């Protein structure tokens, strides 16, 4: 917990104990009968120019983390610090200014582009909304952005339905880049694409990061992609972090039983390698009523007596490799 308290101002992006509950309302009088605990106390930080990969299976709350940081959803509790400013305390006009610096790339390249807008208007919308330049200057900028992401500027007046999935994702990336942002949340940007296209988009994102000194929160469920992209990785399960570590540590020495299970499921492109797969029993429990203690204990191979009672404290095993697990805590 020590590292969370210090240098509030110096770290680029800092998320403190983020909580997002979706209330469940029943009946005509609007009785509050419970909460979907989508994100339940998540903390991490990302230094400038780096990538944090956020992994977890469907329903683990990783998308909600991204949306809440950008305040596309209002948080229940917690803090997000962006360049020393508290994002959750911002007034609407401050938030508008912040939107220039923080952008998002969406998962679904079909749903994320307004089907009635020509591509030029989609990419130029941030410029228009923020009142940048004249019509002519904006069009020049749009053409430049299209070239940067590998689209022909002549296709400016085409509509999204005329493009393929990968091209549409490039349009979404160009839009995100329009205001020269510093921080981009990439919400599963490649999981809806063909594998052959995935690598093109991933490489584009990496090159853009180098060129514009971007900081990414890269949300994905594909571990191979995360390994390729990230400087640091955070593993989420049922709204909580299980393990965070630098890329090499997490993939080289996974400590949390959940991380181990996830990694064992990654296929290895070599038929001679015999891997022992760890099969998790059962399904991910409901976030309405998550297990007590460690949320993973219902599916954990190593669970023992404190696991279903006490919530594990984070343990740093060295090199800022943090694990939320009673077993690891006991071994140290």
């Amino acid at each position, binding site marked *: 917990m020590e590292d969370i308290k210090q240098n509030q101002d110096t770290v680029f992006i800092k998320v403190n104990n983020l909580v997002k509950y979706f209330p469940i309302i029943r009946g005509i009088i609007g009785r509050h009968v419970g909460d979907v605990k989508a994100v339940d106390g998540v903390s991490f930080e990302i230094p400038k120019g780096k990538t944090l990969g956020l992994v977890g299976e469907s329903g683990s709350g990783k998308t909600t983390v991204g949306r809440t940081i950008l305040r596309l959803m209002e948080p229940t509790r917690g803090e997000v610090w962006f360049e020393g400013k508290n994002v959750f305390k911002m007034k609407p006009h401050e938030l508008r200014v912040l939107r220039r610096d923080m952008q998002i790339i969406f998962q679904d390249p079909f749903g994320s582009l307004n089907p009635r807008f020509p591509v030029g208007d989609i990419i130029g*919308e941030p410029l228009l*909304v923020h009142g940048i330049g004249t019509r002519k200057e904006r069009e020049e900028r749009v053409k430049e952005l299209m070239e940067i992401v590998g689209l*022909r500027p002549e296709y400016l007046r085409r509509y999204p339905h005329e493009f393929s999935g990968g091209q549409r994702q490039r349009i979404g990336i160009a839009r995100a880049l329009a205001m020269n942002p510093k921080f981009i949340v990439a919400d599963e940007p490649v999981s809806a694409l063909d594998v052959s296209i995935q690598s093109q988009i991933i490489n*584009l994102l990496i090159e853009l990061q180098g060129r514009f000194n971007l900081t990414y929160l890269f949300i994905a469920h594909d571990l191979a992609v995360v390994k390729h992209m990230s400087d640091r990785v955070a593993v989420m399960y049922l709204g909580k972090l299980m393990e965070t570590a630098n890329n090499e540590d997490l993939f080289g020495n996974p400590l949390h039983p959940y991380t181990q299970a996830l990694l064992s499921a990654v296929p290895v492109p070599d038929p001679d390698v015999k891997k022992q797969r760890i099969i998790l029993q059962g399904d991910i429990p409901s976030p309405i009523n998550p297990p007590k203690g460690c949320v993973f204990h219902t599916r954990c191979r190593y669970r023992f007596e404190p696991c279903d009672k006490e919530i594990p404290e984070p343990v740093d095993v060295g090199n800022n490799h943090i694990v939320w697990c009673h077993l690891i805590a006991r071994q140290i």
Partner: protein
Amino acid sequence: MAVADVTVELAPSFSYWQMVWTRFRKHKLAMFGGAVIIFMILACYAGYPLYVYFTGNDYVSQDLTGRYALPSAQHWFGTDDLGRDVVARILYGGRVSIAVGFISAVASVVIGSLIGVVSAFFGGWIDEALMRFTDVMMSLPYIPLYLVLAMAFGPGFWTLVGIFVAFGWMGDARLVRGVVLSLKNMEFVEAAKAVGASNWRIMVRHLLLNSMAPIIVSTTLAMGGNIVGEAALSYLGLGIQPPLPSWGNILQTAAEYIFAPGNGPWLIFYPGFFLFITVLSFNFMGDGLRDALDPRLKI
């Protein structure tokens, strides 16, 4: 310059409206309807002054010696109970009827769309309040109310339009709210929010623009409906007041004198026919537009 190594060729472009036109053209009845509507509008607005110029008959001049005249070269459709030329009255009355239908349909769709999009976009108590208000307005028995209001404000063109708008927007509000509810969770709306677009911009440029298909169809159908509504109220004597003609009050006068001595029972045919064919055309066109704008749409 480009970071990416691949650029791609696209097939020749067809804009959305080009595709709509291609599909619309295949719908024979809708094409017929559209042609009839264009013909009616031309006849009423450009044809009337030409007719006056060439035959010298306008819609008010009376000729009490020449009542109930049969169709002739001078009076193509004959004359009515006051010896006025029926063609001139039908054409000028068409202006009034079509204008009532058009203005009230457009005004109610604007109001209804705004209420619908605000309701769906903000949700919560705003949605609840607006939709309950819509329910209340819908549950009012409108024919008696029309009569009372027409009496209260004095019958006339703008009273009629006002009444049709005041009681015509609810269907559009519900329709738009429904469409917007399904649109507002799409990622392009979130993208607009992330970019910093104002609520107003998101509602108009993103949500309403994508609801245009059902809105256009509903407006077209409402035009036909309002023309019939005008005829109904005028027939009851509370719509457009003579001597200003409208298809409704021409029909009413014709029906009143149908059994009068020396009358012309054929006089009810003209306004009835024009009403019938115009309203039918609006309905055909609405039907075709629905298929052309969005083949999946169900209204």
